[in-house]
C-alpha cells in the first residue's frame, strides 16, 4: 500500500473508518490491505503458527467490521486499535492453551486507548530495522523481559519466576528496557510522544483473574 493511498482523501484511515461505518465493505478491504500484514506479523510472533495467525487476522477484521462503532478515533488510530485487538486475542489463545480462560471480547476494544497515537508518531520516521536494532542492543536480560512481557503475555511476577530474580528486579528490567528504547528512538528522532493514559484501560487490567473472575 503506497503512501499515495494513505493521503488520498477517499482512502485515509479516517475516511475508511467512516466508510466502514456506513456499510462499505470495500473500505474494509482497503483497511485490510493496509494493516493485515502488520497484524499478521504480530500474530505470527506471538503464536508461532502461521495458520493460527491467519485465523486471528480474519477474526479481527471481521470484528472491526461488526463493531466499528466502538472505535473511538479521539483515543487512538485505527491501526493501533487493530493491533491491540490482535495482540490481546493472540495472548488469550496462548493463555487458553495453558488452561486459562479466554478473556472474551468486548473489553479488548478499550485496551487500545493506552497506546493512543503513538504509532502515528513513529510512522514514517522509524523503520522496523531501526527499532529491531534498538531492541537488539538491549542487555540480554532486558530484551528477554520485554519479549516475555509483550510477546508472550507474561506478568512481571511470572517473568521473575522464569528468570529466577526478585519481582522488583523483573519490574526494573522492564523499565530499563523501555527507557533505553525510548532513548534510542529519541536518537533516531522517532521518539514516541508521551500520551494521555486512560486509567483503567491497560491491557493488564483485562487479564482474567486466575480464579476466573474478571
Amino acid at each position, binding site marked *: 500500500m503506497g503512501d499515495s493511498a494513505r493521503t488520498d482523501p477517499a482512502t485515509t484511515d479516517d475516511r475508511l473508518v467512516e466508510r466502514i*461505518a456506513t456499510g462499505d*465493505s470495500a473500505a474494509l478491504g482497503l483497511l485490510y490491505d493496509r494493516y*493485515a500484514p502488520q497484524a499478521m506479523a504480530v500474530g505470527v510472533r506471538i503464536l508461532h503458527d502461521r495458520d493460527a*495467525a*491467519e485465523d486471528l487476522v480474519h477474526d479481527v*477484521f*471481521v470484528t472491526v467490521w461488526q463493531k466499528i462503532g466502538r472505535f473511538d478515533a479521539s483515543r487512538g488510530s485505527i491501526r493501533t486499535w487493530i493491533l491491540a485487538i490482535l495482540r490481546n486475542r493472540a495472548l488469550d489463545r496462548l493463555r487458553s492453551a495453558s488452561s486459562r480462560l479466554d478473556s472474551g471480547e468486548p473489553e479488548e476494544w478499550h485496551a487500545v486507548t493506552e497506546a493512543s497515537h*503513538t504509532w502515528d508518531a513513529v510512522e514514517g520516521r522509524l523503520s522496523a530495522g531501526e527499532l529491531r536494532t534498538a531492541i537488539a542492543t538491549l542487555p540480554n536480560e532486558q530484551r528477554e523481559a520485554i519479549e516475555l512481557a*509483550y510477546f508472550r503475555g507474561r506478568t512481571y511476577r511470572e517473568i521473575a519466576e522464569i528468570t529466577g530474580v526478585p519481582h522488583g528486579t523483573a519490574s526494573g528490567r522492564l523499565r530499563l528496557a523501555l527507557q533505553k528504547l525510548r532513548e534510542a528512538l529519541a536518537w533516531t528522532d522517532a521518539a514516541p510522544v508521551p500520551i494521555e493514559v486512560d486509567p483503567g484501560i491497560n491491557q493488564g487490567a*483485562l487479564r482474567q483473574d486466575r480464579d476466573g473472575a474478571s
Partner: protein
Amino acid sequence: MNQLAFDCSDVDELDAPYALGALEPDEARAVAAHLVACREPHARLRELVATASALPASLEPIQPSAATRSRVMATVAATPREPRASALAGATATAARSVPVEAVPERRPGLFEWLHPRAMSAVAAVAVVAALAVGAWNLQLRSSLDASDRQLADVAAAVAEGGPAYRVSGSAGSGYLVERADGSASVILGSLAELAEGERYQMWLLNDDEVLTAGSFTASRDQLIVVPLERPVEDATTFAVSVETAPVETPTADPVMVAAIGG
C-alpha cells in the same frame, strides 16, 4: 476479595509492567484507580506506555494468504454490524452527521463469484449442544415429536456421534450446519428474519469450481428450525443462504448467512 489500593510510589514501581500489560489483574486495576484519583502527572508512566505501544513496529510485515482476504470479505458480506455507537463521533463526527444510525450495507452483485473462503476450523461441539438446548426445551413441552423435532433429535444424535458442526451466521440470523457421518447435513437456525411474501431462503454449497443448490425453506421469527440439505456437503468449502423469489439454479442475491466448512 479486598481491592488493592496503591499510592504514587506503588504506581511508579509498577509503571513499566503496567505499560506492557504485564501486571496481575488486581494490580492493574489498582494502578488504574490511582491514576483516576491522583493529581500527579506520572509522566514517566506515560512515556513508558507510549514506548511500549511502538513495539509492533519492530516486526517485519507478513502478507497473509489471498485465501484469508477472501474469507474475510465473504464473512463480512454475511455479517451484520452492531448499531453505530456514539464513540465513533469525535474525529469522524462530520461524516457521522450524514450517516444513518444503522446504515444498511450496499448490496454487491456477483458476490458469490468470489465467495470461496479457505476452510476454517469447526466450532466446538459444545456450542452446538447449547443451541440444541433450545430445541430440547421444545421437546420437553410437547408430548409427541413432530417432524421438525425428529430432525432436531437426528441432528443432536449426529453431534453426539462427533459429527462436525459449523457456525452459520449473517444478517438474516444464525445457527449451525451439522454434518453426519454419511455426508448428509442439516442446518439448525433460529430467529430468522421475516421473509416477504413470495420469498424463500435458498441454501447453497460452494467449492472452488461451482455453486450448487442445497434446497430451500421458509421460516418465521422465533422459530427454531432444522432443515436437511438436499445434497451431501462433500468437497464444499462454504455453505450459504440467499433470499430468492423464485427457484433458481444460481444465486441472484448476496448471501444473508454463510458458514465456512472444513478445518
